[in-house]
């Protein structure tokens, strides 16, 4: 987002006016450009004079030395040393300063706690875990369990269970289950391929599971953090039979898949 530079035009971008206080208590100094004055040797850009170089704080803008032989736009390798620092420095034009100003604004917002602090005072305070790590008091637990009989076709994805994140809520999957209750299944044999899909994508590392994960009584934890969900996302657990699986698996067995976790209001 590019912030409009001012009521006049971009030429006035760098004119310092009072910033709108965004946090109240925290005093933040006016925005110094983060890029400090420095020279550069861009010999290959000779003659451009407007393409690359060095930015200066506005206060130093007026004192920038330019090339002696005709100013900045006559950068000529034959009229001076290419190692002359002052010859290859270009001050920021008003448009660059406009961009600096936007960066300063966002730096100031970040210094005051960021947008979530300004817009969402219900966010966890400092030290509190985020809602996708520990369920907040306004969260809602869910456990979505589904099962189907062994499919009669091989090589096709069969939906076992699905749910959708409620509108206005985000969520997290903390544990899952995929198991087969009949006899004949050998772990990792490729007879069963479980897949987790979120909207149209396959969840990374869970797009082709060939082993049993957990049981309904003891689900498989997703270690080192859960899977974050966004509002209205559709989560699906699929299973596919590998080639020849029907001849090896007990046809009376059932395929069970489940998701466990919680939803929490969007912050």
């Amino acid at each position: 987002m590019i912030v409009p530079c001012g009521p006049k035009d971009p030429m006035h971008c760098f004119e310092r006016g009072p910033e709108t206080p965004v946090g109240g208590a925290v005093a933040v100094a006016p925005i110094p450009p983060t890029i400090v004055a420095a020279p550069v040797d861009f010999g290959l850009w000779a003659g451009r004079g407007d393409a690359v170089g060095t930015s200066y704080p506005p206060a130093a803008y007026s004192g920038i030395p330019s090339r002696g032989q005709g100013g900045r736009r006559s950068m000529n390798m034959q009229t001076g040393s290419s190692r002359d620092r002052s010859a290859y420095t270009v001050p920021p034009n008003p448009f660059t300063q406009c961009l600096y100003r936007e960066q300063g604004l966002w730096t100031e917002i970040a210094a005051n706690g960021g947008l979530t602090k300004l817009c969402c005072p219900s966010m966890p305070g400092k030290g509190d875990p985020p809602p996708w790590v520990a369920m907040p008091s306004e969260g809602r637990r869910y456990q979505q369990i589904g099962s189907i009989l062994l499919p009669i076709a091989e090589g096709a994805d069969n939906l076992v269970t699905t749910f959708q994140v409620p509108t206005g809520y985000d969520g997290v999957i903390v544990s899952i289950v995929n198991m087969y209750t009949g006899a004949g299944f050998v772990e990792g044999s490729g007879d069963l391929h479980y897949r987790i899909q979120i909207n149209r994508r396959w969840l990374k590392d869970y797009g082709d599971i060939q082993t049993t994960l957990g049981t309904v009584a003891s689900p498989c934890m997703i270690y080192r953090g859960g899977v974050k969900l966004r509002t209205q996302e559709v989560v699906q657990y699929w299973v596919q039979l590998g080639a020849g699986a029907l001849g090896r698996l007990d046809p009376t067995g059932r395929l069970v898949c489940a998701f466990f976790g919680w939803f929490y209001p969007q912050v």
Partner: protein
Amino acid sequence: MLKDHILDGFALNLNIRYLPYHYPAACLGQSSVLRRANLYRARWIVQPDDANTPIAAYDTFEGQVQVMPGSYLWGFQLNQFDALFALVAAADVIFQVTDACTGVPLLSDYASGAGFTTFSAAAGVDFHGGVAPHLLTQPRLIMAPGLLNVEIANRAVAAMRCQLLLFFAEPCVVLEEKLAGGAA
């Protein structure tokens, strides 16, 4: 205040029709300040780095790119290749880019690459796959630490190759000064 016309690659691109209410022209209007800024340079970043990085069936590629804090992301495009690295329709690939600092995604959900590819099945120079790169409605500022998470998911039942190209405008910072600042 009247200003000079901007003379850059977009002004010279004959594929952009500068008509009222056309998306590319409107986007370029929003990029006017960035296009006129003098201390920014182009930087293009691809993910995955190697076009010969197959993404397995049902799998997702995850990568992270780093740019100079203060850079602006202004466009992107996504292309899918076959085994001979010829462009094909990007029908199997969906992607998402997230600001690693804020956690704010670029897109509300994974987007299909089909909308952002340069591939076109039609023959002829005038029948390419739209204006490339795809422009953002406004350049997006990337603040410190300048990290973006890239996720590219393969929806197909077979491995595939693709590359996401991100277009940045990066502020010019002198390396020796930056190093000196870091040492201090």
